[in-house]
């Protein structure tokens, strides 16, 4: 592109850049600024306290508990989402029948609102009349308290895995679609097993799609809010807060008028930092030679 053409592109880029600056970068910088203050959000003046909110985070047990919950979703949930997603991909790329129907079925949870899913899962987990305990009862196993303080996060993560797997499997399958069938056929003629085909043909050729899906999962898992919030009931107890929920409850109070906007903003900043670390680490780990088809 010559110099003149580049200049001509500027006015076309300006609307998007302007809107991005005003509605995203500006508020983000303002959030960072608020995090350096003690502020309830009720007054015009904010009390500058420097890095005190960040120091408070270090000694705040509820923050670290919520951070642990966030990491459980991000890493624990992520491993299963992609293991199951890759399993689907391996099977679906081998020309199994009713491929389109299976794709539609595994994607189905994504078209239901997470809040509705949370309510349904709550019923499934009920101790007295829930689906899972009814099944256990049928086979003579005593009931499990799925939503007890010790189990509730694991139960929530299991539900999160269930409703996310289809979405990420579809992304991976879209990568598989661009691989010419001739490659699979050639591998089969050579006598390669399903696993070998997946490892040596499918996975290397969808590596770029896989890395994007993992990063997308990371961002979504760190900011996950709606499902967990609804799963916790009318006012979720602190044992099942992730950092996004903790940040919301501190800043906007839910039904308890806390309104610590400064501290809440500091927590939001830590979430952004975690996203950056995840994205940068992810890109480094997934950096490989891209095979051109």
């Amino acid at each position, binding site marked *: 592109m010559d110099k*003149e053409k580049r*200049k*001509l592109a*500027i*006015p076309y880029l*300006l*609307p998007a850049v*302007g*809107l991005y600056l*005003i*509605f995203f970068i500006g508020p983000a910088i303002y959030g960072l600024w608020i995090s350096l203050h003690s502020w*309830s*959000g*009720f*007054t015009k003046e904010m009390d500058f306290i420097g890095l005190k909110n960040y120091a*408070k985070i270090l*000694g*705040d*047990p*509820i923050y670290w508990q919520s951070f642990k919950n966030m990491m459980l979703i991000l890493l624990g949930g992520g491993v299963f989402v992609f293991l199951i997603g890759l399993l689907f991909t391996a099977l679906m790329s081998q020309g199994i029948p009713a491929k389109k129907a299976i794709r539609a079925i595994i994607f189905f949870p994504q078209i239901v609102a997470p809040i509705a899913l949370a309510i349904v899962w*709550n019923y499934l*987990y*009920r*101790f*007295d009349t829930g689906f899972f305990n009814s099944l256990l009862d049928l086979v003579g196993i005593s*009931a499990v*308290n*799925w*939503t*007890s*303080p010790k*189990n*509730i996060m694991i139960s929530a993560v299991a539900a999160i895995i269930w409703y996310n797997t289809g979405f990420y499997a579809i992304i991976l399958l879209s990568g598989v679609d661009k691989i010419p069938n001739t490659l699979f056929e050639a591998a089969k003629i050579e006598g390669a097993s399903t696993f070998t085909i997946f490892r040596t043909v499918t996975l290397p050729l969808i590596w770029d799609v896989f890395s994007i899906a993992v990063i997308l999962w990371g961002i979504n898992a760190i900011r996950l809010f709606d499902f967990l919030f609804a799963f*916790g*009931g*009318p*006012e*979720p*107890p*602190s*044992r099942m807060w992730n950092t996004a929920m903790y940040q919301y*409850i*501190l800043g*906007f*109070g*839910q*039904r*308890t*008028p*806390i*309104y*610590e906007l400064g501290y809440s903003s500091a927590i939001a900043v830590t979430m952004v930092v975690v996203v950056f670390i995840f994205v940068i680490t992810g890109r480094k780990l997934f950096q490989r030679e891209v095979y051109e088809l």
Partner: protein
Amino acid sequence: MRKKVGLFSVILLISILFVATACSKNTGSDSGSSGDSGKTVIKYWSMWNTGEPQQEVIQGIIDAYEEENPDVTIDVQWMGRQVLSDVRNASLGGDGAPDLTDQSGAEVVGTLVKNELVEPLNDLLTMEIPNEGATFQDVFIDDTLSFYQQDEDTYFIPYEIITSGFHYNESLFNEHGIDAPSTWDEFIEVGKKLKDKGIAPLAQDGNIDFYNAYYYYWLTERIMGAESLLKAAGDETGETWSEPGYLEAAKKIEELVDNDFFADGYEGSQYPAAQTAWAKGDSAMILNGSWISSETSEYSSDDFIYRAFPFPEIESSEVDSDQAELYLIGWVAPEGSNVDAVQDFLAFAMQKQYQEGIVTETGNISTRNDLDAPEKLTDLKEMIVNASTYHAEYDRLQAEYPEWWKTVFLPLDDSLLFGDITADEFIDQLQVQTKEFWENQ
């Protein structure tokens, strides 16, 4: 060409900024003012959701008021329980706040009154209630109107009373020859008797931490009196927790856990599972707010007779056991409201003919002194009317120390009620964490 591109870019950027500024500016509303049609508009954001009985009652009042006052329009939005967050944000934004909103007294004080985002409604107290000739302040049950008064100013106009106590099915008690207990020892005996008969004495939806907190809060009220929890929470040294009454209260919760009084799986019970099971007869008693009868009536059997008894007296305590909890729901006028218009509407709304709906349609106790309680809440109204003193729900902790309440007290209280920590550990932790909490502020 270069000049043209540059000029075009500058004009475009200015245009975007102009549009963005226009978007961010509150376009304002005709809240509380006379619009083009000359009508006064009262903007009302309510805590109720469409379809709830209270929403229907209040909508009826609004319709009647607009019919009698054709020059006034009430622009109502049913926002749900988190309405005050929206009111607060709108108040900070300038002229977007409503003229009228409603919520519980503790939330109103914590969110709006403490932050000076409300208008006093003092003139309303001496206004006449239409069609009745009575003065506004004279129609309320004693102390309810003044309960949230700040100095000489009245901001909060309560229209519904909630209180808490132990709820039970009289038919079940009669079937097993059990009388409602009045002291802690009797309560423990009742629990043991029920357990022997294979009935779980207590229902508890463990995922609602503020329901779990009813036990410890009521025990401290009974052992040490009103505001004892508030005092300990506000003590920055944490030393107040070492007073023996706090440990005694925790020991009594330990006693309930050790006796296995709570229904199986209560730690993980997701609201409303336990209260529904209670209404179906799977458990005998539930410590909860007076809303429990209206929330569970569709699940209860035909012979279910809703009764309630106050939190038992602690024999060793010298505190009067006839103190009652007042958890009031009421109206408030946020800062910048058209106070005259709001007061006129509230005087109209407090007419007996409209407040009857709170009793008959919503199944709650009205703040009007000339209305009976619904049959299911007769016991609870008796507790209120016969009380020597009142205290606010949870000792006002939600309004005064909301962050401590949510991040220090409730998690520890859950651990105690679930049997994960002992009473001694509970007190030790409260002492340490309260001190740390205040050091971090």
